[in-house]
């Protein structure tokens, strides 16, 4: 027996509703976040990730309230991301009941923010989210760069080097989303997942592109992911968390049943 690979349903939340878009457009409603969180908790999800995709100032209060409601009923780890910019934001989310926060754009703007956050709150609760996009042409050595602002803004920063730097700064986990794959249901970008998983000492969560259960298996076995994150396959009832775990177990992956 060993450490189990984790299955993490992701709640993308916009104005108090769980939504799911394809490459950040064409948004579909997937329900009330508290009800959705309870459902996944009952199904045996290993963790939950809550991403506030609007993250406007007004939405912040709603998010804190929703996180409080989820934390009062769900006793598995909860990561909250979206618009985390200051130590105060982190403190508010942890006080609301989050176990970890996910930092993305704010880390790109100020890499030392991650260092200060890890020193203040501990690496165990600092997840750095990386949105990576392939920038190499066909036939070239594969290369990925990071994008911010929901995948709209290029930064010119190499994704693998960035992941290593974030771990040096104290990130306890990397949440890696492929912007090329997100919403496509074509499967994870296994190349960038493997490259980053091999390069960093901390656990890597693969995200973006899951369309079936084989994709989850591929993410772990070929991508080297420690955890796999998915949204729409669970939200719209295509698969349940127990089905996903049974499939992974049948493919010789250690899971918590």
């Amino acid at each position, binding site marked *: *027996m*060993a450490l189990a690979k984790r299955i993490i349903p992701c709640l993308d939340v916009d104005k108090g509703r769980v939504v799911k878009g394809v490459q950040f457009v064409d948004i579909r409603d997937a329900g009330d976040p508290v009800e959705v969180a309870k459902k996944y908790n009952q199904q045996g999800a290993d963790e939950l990730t809550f991403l506030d995709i609007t993250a406007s100032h007004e939405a912040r209060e709603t998010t804190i309230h929703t996180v409080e409601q989820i934390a*009062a009923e769900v*006793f598995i*780890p909860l990561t909250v991301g979206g618009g985390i910019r200051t130590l105060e934001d982190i403190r508010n989310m*942890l006080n609301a*009941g989050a*176990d970890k926060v996910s930092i993305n754009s704010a880390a790109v703007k100020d890499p030392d923010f991650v260092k200060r956050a890890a020193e203040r709150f501990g690496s165990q609760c600092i997840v750095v989210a990386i949105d990576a996009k392939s920038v190499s042409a066909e036939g070239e050595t594969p290369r990925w760069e990071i994008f911010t602002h929901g995948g709209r803004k290029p930064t010119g920063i190499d994704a693998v080097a960035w992941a290593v730097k974030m771990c040096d700064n104290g990130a306890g986990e990397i949440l890696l989303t492929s912007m090329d794959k997100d919403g496509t249901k074509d499967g994870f970008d296994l190349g960038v997942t493997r490259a980053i998983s091999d390069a960093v000492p*901390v656990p890597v969560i693969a995200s973006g592109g899951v369309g079936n259960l084989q994709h989850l298996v591929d993410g772990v076995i070929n991508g*080297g992911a420690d955890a796999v994150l998915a949204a729409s396959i669970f939200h719209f009832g295509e698969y349940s968390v127990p089905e996903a775990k049974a499939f992974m177990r049948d493919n010789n992956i250690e899971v918590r049943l």
Partner: protein
Amino acid sequence: MNRKQVAVIDYGMGNLHSVASALKHIGPDIDVAVTSDRETIANADHVIFPGVGAIRDCMAEIRKQQVDKAVAEVMASGKPMLAICVGLQALMNFSEENNGVDCLNVFSGKVKFFAGNPRFKAAHDEGSASGERLKVPHMGWNTVEQRLPHPLWHNIENGGRFYFVHSYYVEAEQKELIAGACHYGIDFTAAMAEKNLFAVQFHPEKSHTNGLQLLTNFLNWDGKW
């Protein structure tokens, strides 16, 4: 009948919301106080000694706020106490974290860095060759082998999974006090038990059914076994 009083010791390190929230969920008729007040702690029926973050800062606050004295008083009183995560680590002699920090000496043994252990490194390198790597922190759901028959394991399957998140592990010298063991590249101490004290490396408040059962067992425990 008086409501049961549970004190969660707060010394300013980390987020104790989860522990309090899980206790309220399983025992709606209990009072949970998140506190550093020695009198409140002394008057509680059950005490929880949690801990999150780096050991140097934790130990500094524990000494500054006299949590060390409160813990010693609770131990002597015979009332049930549950230490969680860095709470367990703080009970050992010494931690390697932050260039070495002296701890509370309740249990004999050290707190060590996973990646500093040659056997862990060997397991890591062997895994890397087959495409599987042992990451640090040890984060996620791992199995706990129950080494002692203890009331806190009641209704929990031997080998059941709990949620861990830590980069340093406890190597206990008093093997007879190891109540639970875990394996991650190497064997390490997941739980210790002595008299009215039970201490765990994992997070019961985040361990779903098994964790809530352990907390229920703790609330039902009279501190004897």
